[in-house]
């Protein structure tokens, strides 16, 4: 049974208009995103800043209302689930800035156990605290962390508390919005391994959002590349990293510096020219046309739709052929 499905999802924000009664403008960020996610699987969403990946992540939980399309949770349209907030225990989220995700005025035990007051109101304070300590243990934090405060934690420890809070309600899915981008390399590895262990032991599905292609490669089963709010490529991990089809994916692969001097010294001078297009004025044709080395007039005028180039692999480009 598919756990999570997006169907033609559009998301945007209302910008407050200027003046007393100025009309507010609607800024579309995410356009026509569709995918399915099976239980225990990880979908990696990768893209540069402004591509709408975080907005999409929040819309998948209806934390921001999508402006078009549907999000199905176990086959049921989330917009129609009554008292959705009580079902939120099954679908949780962790954030990029670990310390900002914790209320500075609460002890860690209260932070982690707070969601239980909504999901399992029957629990006594004592039982809730025990569940919190159990969750902290699952993320490698000993019981004596329970009475500490967020300002006493390192970035890595704070992110673990965020994960513990997500785990306490026994979720089926966790949306990870750039969870390791703010952490040092050695701590990043600890948190990535922890997420993969939890997925194996608890059968968790993950939506892993990041701008770092290498991190996404390590943790995802399927990869979705986004550019300026649109999906430009979707593929299983192995095939994608062996042979990225869309020129944008290739450019990203090319740009990511690897700790291998010979490979990197050869790469100097191969960077794209041109600027990141702005979300406020999206180009008419293909979203990558302004920087694509293979761009032709066709690309600048008509937007290529996301088509199946090879079974199980989608790409949105006029000139992409099967590998």
């Amino acid at each position, binding site marked *: 049974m598919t756990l999570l499905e997006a169907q033609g999802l559009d998301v945007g924000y209302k910008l407050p208009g200027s003046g007393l009664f100025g009309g507010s403008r609607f800024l579309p960020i995410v356009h026509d995103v569709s995918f399915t996610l099976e239980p225990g699987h990880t979908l990696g969403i990768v893209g540069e800043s402004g591509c709408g990946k975080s907005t999409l992540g929040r819309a998948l939980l209806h934390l921001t209302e999508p402006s078009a399309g549907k999000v199905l949770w176990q086959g049921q349209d989330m917009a129609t689930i009554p008292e959705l907030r009580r079902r939120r225990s099954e679908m949780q989220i962790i954030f990029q800035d670990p310390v900002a995700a914790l209320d500075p005025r609460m002890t860690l035990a209260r932070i982690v156990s707070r969601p239980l007051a909504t999901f399992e109101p029957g629990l006594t304070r004592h039982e809730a605290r025990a569940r919190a300590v159990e969750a902290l243990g699952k993320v490698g934090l000993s019981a004596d962390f329970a009475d500490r405060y967020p300002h006493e934690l390192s970035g890595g*420890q704070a992110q673990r508390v965020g994960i513990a809070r997500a785990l306490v309600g026994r979720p089926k899915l966790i949306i990870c919005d750039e969870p390791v981008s703010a952490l040092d390399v050695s701590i990043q590895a600890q948190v990535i391994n922890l997420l993969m262990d939890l997925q194996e032991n608890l059968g968790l599905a993950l939506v892993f959002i990041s701008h770092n292609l290498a991190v996404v490669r390590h943790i995802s089963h399927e990869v979705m590349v986004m550019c300026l709010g649109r999906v430009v490529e979707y593929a299983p991990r192995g095939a994608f990293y062996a042979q990225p089809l869309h020129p944008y994916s290739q450019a990203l692969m090319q740009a990511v510096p690897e700790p291998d001097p010979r490979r990197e010294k050869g790469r100097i001078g191969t960077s794209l020219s041109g600027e990141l297009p702005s979300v406020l004025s999206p180009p008419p044709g293909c979203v990558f046309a302004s920087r694509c080395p293979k761009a032709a007039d066709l690309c600048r005028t008509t937007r290529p739709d996301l088509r199946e180039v090879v079974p199980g692999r989608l790409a949105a480009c006029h000139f992409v052929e099967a590998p």
Partner: protein
Amino acid sequence: MPLTPMTDSLLSIKDLSVSFRLPEGETLAVDGVSLDLAPGEVLGIVGESGSGKSQILYAMMGLLAANGRASGQVLFEGQNLLSLLPAQLDRLRGNAVSMIFQDPMTSLNPYMRVGDQLAEGLIVHKGISRTQAQAEAVRMLDRVRIPDAAARARRFPHEFSGGMRQRVMIAMALLAKPRLLLADEPTTALDVTIQAQVLDLMAELGRETGTAIILVTHDLGVVARLCDRVVVLYGGRVMEEASAETLFDAPVHPYTRGLLAAMPRLETALTPRLGTIPGTPRSGGQVIGCPFVSRCEARLPDCAIHRPPLRDLTALDHRHRVACHLTGTAP
């Protein structure tokens, strides 16, 4: 660019320490760091947060916070920067030595036109007229590939993207043809395709003007792309120093090896789990023995007691130095 004998090195840092007076006591951010740089060479300083890597640059440029103090020697073309009076230091800053910073969004003056901010340095250091300086500034903006540079020079920083602002910063730094460019995590705040552009620009301009570069970063990939030689820092001390090729092919220090194992890769074979270094990065503070001891899985009893000196493994290539007791026993 192999390092020629010590005498004509552009920069020679000897036993630099930086400490900060905090209400709860004195902390040592940099603890006796020594390193050399040849003219035109690109040196990478790599370390996690709290390793003190940025403080080395700030100490050299006299930009330490009010409660910071630097000791030791920083010889730049024979002059000890730490002992210069502010006025003497100002003659060098932005002229012989210039610096670019991590966050492009806040490093430019929001109230001043970009062209004026560039021209200002030239007017002060080269004493040329305003119009001449502004013309030179436009040429430099063009050189760093800012589209229609002449018009853009009259605009204000908030009208530039992050990537463009960083290129403006580079133009500003290289305008006076400095001999040394200090870069404090210049591409950390940028997207990967924009980062590639900025790194290409730095490599190109560095080679063209013969400017030596010290690049401080936490990203081993960036170091591999730009640097000739690399210094790995932890807890304010040099753990390992080697040419880029040696460091990445045959790292010796457990910390360097741990960092490389912990970094997810694009092209090498996938391993089920990333290599990890337990515990949290240590920041500064007085420590007897090796600062990495609490997280090092190959530690010896001696590591917690005696501070491992930076030994030269002359057997390998000409400059491969490591501060670890494990190498003490090695040939």
